[in-house]
């Protein structure tokens, strides 16, 4: 928060304008913190703030109540300016129990607000959180502004007249907290009211209780002396246009629907449930009216196989997974490379190796995407940079796949997938035309003929008379596609497949440099770190330092300008949420002595930490 929330203490409940605020809601995984955060986010988006979110939840669905592993958090950054990240450090922490306080207090900005449910600070809950004392009484929170609210009791009182059980009443606590925050940050409640009515339409008594809790929270904050000021955050001065809010996974799903629509084709999505990619399957399965066919396969391999089959049949074929699933799909991706069929593989990266950190973000599948298959097996790789960019890159992935007849890897990550931002959505007619021409002439047809420009082979579909042909995983003779073990042919075909992927570079937009094209330090990023890197670089340039950045959305092949851009700077720094995978590729490809900034913590990079590191290089 740029304006100081710590000053506070003004009588008569005045409003104070702030530029930006970061709130973190934290509670048990059953406390509804994701929902509370999502509601606050939608309301903030609709009032015109720029927004960025970071849901942070445990892999366990319901870890023991009150325990540290069971804490679920949702961080939201809302602003009157253009923002790119969910915020380094929260200004406000809402802690529904001692465990939520303990897990999150270390991240809070010094002097930030802590709103706690004092009713939850029982001996039992304190013990579960590993406290041998009550931190609310010990003075250890003196660096923060603590707002103790007996929230469970207040909520229960507000719902005394309802017919709900005590347990059901207590489940409305999060709405009480949301109402309180709505007052504190001067938000309208209409959107959430509508949402409650919609969601619990069939259970009017539950809808009524939730509405009462919401309003009681709002009125409580308005009435008690504890809260002296409420804060306003003005509409953001975003580019003019019409916006909606969107998560990365939603944008991914919509992007592929749009791509299939612009190709005039059926979208086929074969997938096996896996965190954090499952929401793509959920979203796509809701849009059958666009001719979308979703298939929940028996395993990751079957999902990939089904997508290859659908591609052979002429659909826009897609599979989605996360790192462990990508490993399982490897052999089948090789088959798609060999048979030169257009399939897009979405990998929403998460912490690894093995099962790793299923609900946390990471960028450590880049080398798997490049090299994780047997044989010389090149695949174009693209990576969206922001949640909304997931939409654009989905269209790009389909364009590359169908133009070059190749599988394409699309690397999203857990942060992009679940993060929300405003999206100035495009109109259908502004989207690229992705129509495909299939080979239909029997005369002169050969399955492995090549387009001279793209090196793509013909996409000849079953059902076309006279084009009956056989393809498969064995090496193909050039042109005829017959099985061929000839040594020179193999060398030729291996080279051809590599050359075809290299030629994708001819079709890519020019690489944009953020900042001057030459200087002291170039920061090179990819994927979900875009927001942190750009913000850090912007901050340093405001300080007058010679720093620029490029963010790679195309990783294989790289854009043609990259080599020259790298050469224009004294130092190249590659921040990544891995141990230096892009850096490894850049060093190999461009012989550049790139430096790394690597933090593999399952969390997005922090702007101030990264900025500090860059500053030390300049």
């Amino acid at each position, binding site marked *: 928060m740029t304006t100081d929330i710590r000053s506070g203490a003004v009588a008569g409940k005045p409003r104070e304008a702030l530029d930006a605020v970061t709130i973190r809601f934290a509670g048990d995984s059953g406390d509804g913190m994701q929902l509370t955060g999502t509601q606050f986010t939608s309301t903030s*988006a*609709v*009032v*015109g703030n720029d927004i960025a979110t970071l849901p942070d939840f445990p892999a366990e669905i319901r870890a023991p109540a009150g325990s540290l592993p069971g804490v679920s958090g949702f961080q939201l950054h809302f602003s009157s300016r253009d923002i790119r990240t969910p915020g380094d450090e929260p200004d406000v922490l809402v802690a529904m129990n001692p465990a939520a306080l303990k897990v999150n207090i270390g991240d809070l900005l010094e002097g930030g607000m802590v709103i706690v449910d004092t009713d939850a600070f029982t001996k039992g809950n304190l013990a579960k959180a590993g406290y041998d004392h009550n931190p609310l009484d010990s003075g250890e929170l003196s660096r923060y502004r603590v707002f103790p609210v007996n929230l469970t009791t207040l909520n229960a009182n507000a719902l005394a007249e309802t017919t709900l059980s005590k347990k059901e009443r207590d489940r409305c606590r999060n709405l009480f907290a949301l109402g309180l925050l709505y007052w504190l940050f001067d938000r309208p409640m209409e*959107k959430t009211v509508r949402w409650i009515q919609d969601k619990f339409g069939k259970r009017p008594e539950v809808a009524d209780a939730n509405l009462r809790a919401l309003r009681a929270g709002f009125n409580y904050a308005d009435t008690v002396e504890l809260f002296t000021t409420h804060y306003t955050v003005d509409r953001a001065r*975003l*580019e*003019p*246009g*019409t*916006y*909606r809010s*969107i998560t990365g996974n939603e944008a991914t799903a919509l992007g592929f*629907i*749009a791509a299939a*629509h612009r190709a*005039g084709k*059926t979208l*086929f999505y074969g997938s096996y449930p896996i965190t954090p990619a499952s929401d793509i399957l959920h979203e796509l399965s809701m849009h*059958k*009216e*666009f*001719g*979308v*066919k979703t*298939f929940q*396969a*028996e*395993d990751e*391999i*079957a999902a990939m*196989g*089904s997508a*290859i*089959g*659908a591609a*052979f*049949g*002429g*659909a826009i*074929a897609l599979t989605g997974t996360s790192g462990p699933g990508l490993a399982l799909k490897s*052999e*089948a991706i090789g*088959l798609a490379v060999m048979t030169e069929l257009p399939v897009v593989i979405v990998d929403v990266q998460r912490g690894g190796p093995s099962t790793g950190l299923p609900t946390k973000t990471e960028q450590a599948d880049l080398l798997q995407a490049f090299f994780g298959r047997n044989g010389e097996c090149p695949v174009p790789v693209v990576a969206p940079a922001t949640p909304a960019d997931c939409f654009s890159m989905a269209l790009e992935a389909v364009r590359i796949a169908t133009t070059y007849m190749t599988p394409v890897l699309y690397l999203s990550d857990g942060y992009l997938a679940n993060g929300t931002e405003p999206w100035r*959505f495009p*109109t*259908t007619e502004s989207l690229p035309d992705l129509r495909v*021409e*299939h080979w*239909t*002439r029997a005369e002169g047809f050969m399955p492995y003929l090549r387009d001279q420009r793209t090196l793509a082979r013909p996409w000849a579909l*079953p*059902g076309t008379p*006279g*084009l*009956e042909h*056989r393809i*498969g*995983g064995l090496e193909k003779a050039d042109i005829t596609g017959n*099985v061929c073990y000839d040594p020179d042919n193999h060398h030729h075909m291996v080279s051809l497949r590599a050359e075809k992927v290299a030629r994708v570079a001819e079709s890519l937009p020019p690489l944009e440099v953020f900042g001057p094209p030459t200087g002291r330090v170039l920061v090179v990023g990819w994927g979900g770190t875009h927001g942190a890197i750009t913000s850090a670089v912007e901050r340093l340039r405001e300080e007058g330092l010679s720093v620029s950045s490029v963010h790679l959305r195309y990783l294989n092949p790289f854009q043609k300008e990259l080599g020259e851009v790298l050469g224009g700077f004294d130092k190249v720094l590659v921040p990544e949420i891995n141990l230096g995978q892009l850096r490894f590729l850049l060093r190999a490809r461009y012989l550049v002595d790139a430096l790394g900034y690597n933090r593999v913590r399952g969390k997005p990079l922090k702007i101030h930490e990264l900025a500090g590191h860059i500053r030390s290089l300049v």
Partner: protein
Amino acid sequence: MGMNTDVGGGTATREAPASLSRKDFVSDQEVRWCPGCGDYAILAQVQRVMPTLGIPRENIVFISGIGCSSRFPYYMNTYGFHSIHGRAATLATGLKCARPELSVWVVTGDGDGLSIGGNHLIHALRRNVDLKILLFNNRIYGLTKGQYSPTSEFGKKTKSTPLGSIDYPINPVQVALAAEATFVARSFDRDLNHLAHIVERAAAHKGSAFVEIYQNCNIFNDHAFEHFTEKDVRDDRTVYLEHGKPLVFGRGGDKGIRLRGLHPEVVALGDGGSTEELLVHDERARDASLAYLLSHLDYPEYPIPLGVFRAIQRPTLETMMQTQVDQAVQKGGPRDLDALLRGRETWTVDA
């Protein structure tokens, strides 16, 4: 050139190009199976049946995995896909979902379909995808030169089991029945007419059709089925299942099978036994119990059943998938991508 691949409804076009013959289904590729392999007979029968099905050749696709049997698509002059080990059913499922009007065939073996690809086989069958699955069972790994397979007999000595196999074998028909396949049959490479008949029945079935074909590998597992497939013993050691007919077998039909409680027993006919008390085959029973019971019959205690164990009707995956799409289109009106992108809530930032 552009053609619309957006699939509408989808049953196979049945306007037969009557002029097609067996030769039209023979590709220009040299067949590379070992001389004397049972695969030749199966290929010949499938090529014989194809022109009689009334399906345009361009609408037929053969998909295989890896193994000797999986070279099959190269020899069929149809669309074909030689995929990777065990995964043919997955490609076939995706293709059939995308293009319900195609006639999609899967050729697999005992290793490909029951070992590495066992999971996919089970799931394709339980979903009732309209696929014709031909499983060539030679009870050996041929392409890798002679290791035991999931259908090899217990105790079998092979390159990888010099002291005898200690794995209990799996019964392909039982796997298919347990997966609730809607069509389950068995034939073998030595009775060409029966094989052709079963392939025709499978082709005519709407839904997953599973056919186990006993196939002799004369290099690594020769004579595996001779004890009941040789002409002089075949009548006494096999029983041909026919819907609605009593289970009669033996030279001149001198034996039958009846049930005593839950136990089948072989009875001699005309010698105190009459066909009236024999078990009558019912391939259309909703419940697979009878078919499962029959699947247990094995030589030497019983004759080995051949023919159709089960053939029932149930909606297919790709049809139901298409129906959901069609209904959504009907209900949702014309596809309005702009409305989808706009979503439920928007706000405007003025210049």
